[in-house]
């Protein structure tokens, strides 16, 4: 038995009792009927949150262990408040066979036997090449929870359709990285006033939105669900809102960097702000914030995309795309709570309940019998992302060297302390 006392939960002090890997009860502070031999953790001054689920990370193993490996990625997840992460298939080799999935799960079991849990995402097509369907039944049996061609959008709409249909029989949902391959070719950032001044090729927001419209119409026609990865543009939100209003089973994610930054972060050719899809205009950022609150955006993900220092230390042309997020996501989204744009219940919804519901993963609503996945968070602790404070091997965050507030102080998954 574990008893957490005096924690803050949605503005009131609570006690929490966990029995093994399950929540037993949560009560107002001082009213918890705990046995005398329960382990006690005094959480005075700390916020109690359910373990977050990150449905979109890149852990780089196998193949790119110099950027990140499953062990370092899961350690960053543990310290970031994530009890479960779903890792994308663009490893080397690509996760398009059961052998690769089993290898990933084996690495996770060795380094983090008690969590955070790893849920691999299957490549939708062999080698992510967009030519033929990956063996999805085999991948599902090995432990994949969803499928995606993330990073290599499927331009062949017929293949997308057949893959969605085939995956539906297996209970797997398609996570689509939406980007028109011709309209969005060779870009370095958002197309707009800033790209015009910097003299670099931009990606128009419509390059994202047209593909999302395609996916939604296809999902409606097939009566199947589809999940839209990392939405960056207001125009895309309008399309998703339209789809939802028609009753299409479309769900969508965005990432903390799209809520906190805009294209002006690219000033001075800042390669740390180069990301796919690109940071858009301040109007897009504000619309995304509203959409997270309103539920047009269902969930947040980090799209954690670690790279080695030298892969970002170059011209904007040469620098790779990607921003790390596991270490910083909670500090950044708590900033939105501080600004009254979101509240604590919203965080539980977008980082825990909805990802659990969409991908069929266990999630903690602090009801009796829920999984004992939770963490304690000090919202006031100030820290500066840097080589000494980041647990990910990747230090490629535009928040590097800036002062952030809020740190996870203790974290349990399945009732076991993971740090």
């Amino acid at each position: 038995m574990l008893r957490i006392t005096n924690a803050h939960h949605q503005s009131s002090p609570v006690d929490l009792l966990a029995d093994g890997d399950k929540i037993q009860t949560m009560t107002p502070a001082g009213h918890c009927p705990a046995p005398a031999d329960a382990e006690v953790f005094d959480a005075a001054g700390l916020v109690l949150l359910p373990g977050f689920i990150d449905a979109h990370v890149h852990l780089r193993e196998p193949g790119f262990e110099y950027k990140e490996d499953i062990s370092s990625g899961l350690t960053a997840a543990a310290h970031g408040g994530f009890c479960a992460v779903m890792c994308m298939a663009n490893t080397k080799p690509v996760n398009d066979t059961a052998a690769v999935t089993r290898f990933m799960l084996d690495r996770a079991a060795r380094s983090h036997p008690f969590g955070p849990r790893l849920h691999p995402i299957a490549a939708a097509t062999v080698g992510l090449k967009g030519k033929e369907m990956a063996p999805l039944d085999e991948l599902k049996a090995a432990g994949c929870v969803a499928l995606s061609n993330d990073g290599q959008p499927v331009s062949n709409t017929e293949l997308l359709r057949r893959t969605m249909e085939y995956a539906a029989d297996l209970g797997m949902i398609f996570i689509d990285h939406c980007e028109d391959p011709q309209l969005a070719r060779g870009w370095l950032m958002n197309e707009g006033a800033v790209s015009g001044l910097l003299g670099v090729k931009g990606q128009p927001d419509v390059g994202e939105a047209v593909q999302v419209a395609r996916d939604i119409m296809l999902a409606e026609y097939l009566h199947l669900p589809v999940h839209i990865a990392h939405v960056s543009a207001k125009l895309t939100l309008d399309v998703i809102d339209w789809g939802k209003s028609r009753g299409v089973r479309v769900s969508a994610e965005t990432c903390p960097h799209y809520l906190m930054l805009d294209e002006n972060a690219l000033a001075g050719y800042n390669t740390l702000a180069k990301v796919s899809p690109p940071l858009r205009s301040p109007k897009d950022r504000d619309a995304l914030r509203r959409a997270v609150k309103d539920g047009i955006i269902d969930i947040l993900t980090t799209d954690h995309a670690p790279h080695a220092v030298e892969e970002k230390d170059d011209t904007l042309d040469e620098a790779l795309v990607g921003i790390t997020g596991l270490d910083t996501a909670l500090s950044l989204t708590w900033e939105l709570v501080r600004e009254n744009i979101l509240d604590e219940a919203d965080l539980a919804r977008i980082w825990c309940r909805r990802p659990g519901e969409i991908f069929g993963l266990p999630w903690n609503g602090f009801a009796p019998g829920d999984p004992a996945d939770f963490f304690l968070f000090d919202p006031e602790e100030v820290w500066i992302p840097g080589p000494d404070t980041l647990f990910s091997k990747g230090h490629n965050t535009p928040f590097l060297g800036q002062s952030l507030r809020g740190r996870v102080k203790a974290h349990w998954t399945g009732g076991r302390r993971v740090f």
Partner: protein
Amino acid sequence: MNADNCYFWPHKDLLDVTQLSGEDTFHLLDLAARFQEINHRPIKKVPTLKGRTVVLFFVENSTRTRISFDIAAKRLSADTYALTKSGSSISKGESLKDTALTLQAMGPDVIVMRHASSGAAEYLAKLLTCSVINGGDGWHAHPTQVLLDCFSLRQAWEGRFTDHTLLILGDIAHSRVARSNVHLFTMLGVRVRLCAPRTLLPAGAEGWPVEVYSDIDQAVRGVDAIMCLRLQLERQQAGLLPDLAEYSRRFCLSAAHLRLAKPEVKVMHPGPLNRGLEISNDIADAPASLVLDQVSSGVATRMAILYLLATRNGGKTA
């Protein structure tokens, strides 16, 4: 040569004209005018930068900018060393960072770089302690070109910039010359017009302090100078234009256009010219053309830039 006692050049690098104040610009142009005199002497060399080292690091091809800097540096007695992409370790896969640090370790005072990536000069300037001159970075900026354009027009316009209109004609979107020119000339009070098909206009141009035209006959009316830009043949291949003959019919500057402009209109081109594509053959050689004057102005302007950067710590050298 005496630097003005009450003026101090504040910049380690020259990355874009956006960093220059009006005072910086006029000081530089005045200095260039004094260096221009040297270029008319029988012996075109002064000892001003004797013992200084200038590296010409041209990762993208260039004829006139590179040789212009080379001549400018040598006329000031600096030593110059040229490095091109094919002759450097970049062709063996060495990163820009490592190549630049290697060059710096040899102790140059100034590195002039031409690079195909926008922002490459800024990247280099942050990395290195020696002075960096942007000899053109991607589509972004080409400060020495537009300072020489400004030098030429200042002479042609007898020192007056206000009440003048400059038309920039052609591929604005992919032109570092256009971006830098728009900034410098609007800062000096010149009215700037752009004329291009919409596919060759930069994103956000509607927010720039310029007038935008797609019809050349409208655009040339009453202007004091027209700057033609080179059309890269790859723009047609990228699907931005139907074919070059159609481009030429719509946008090639001809004698008929000049008759719609001011009688004393000047024609400029940063080179290299595509005769018959963006500028008709007879215009390029007409008295209105400043094209060759731009080239000779380039040497004087670059002498002034090298002087200001190489002596910025010494203050009143030579």
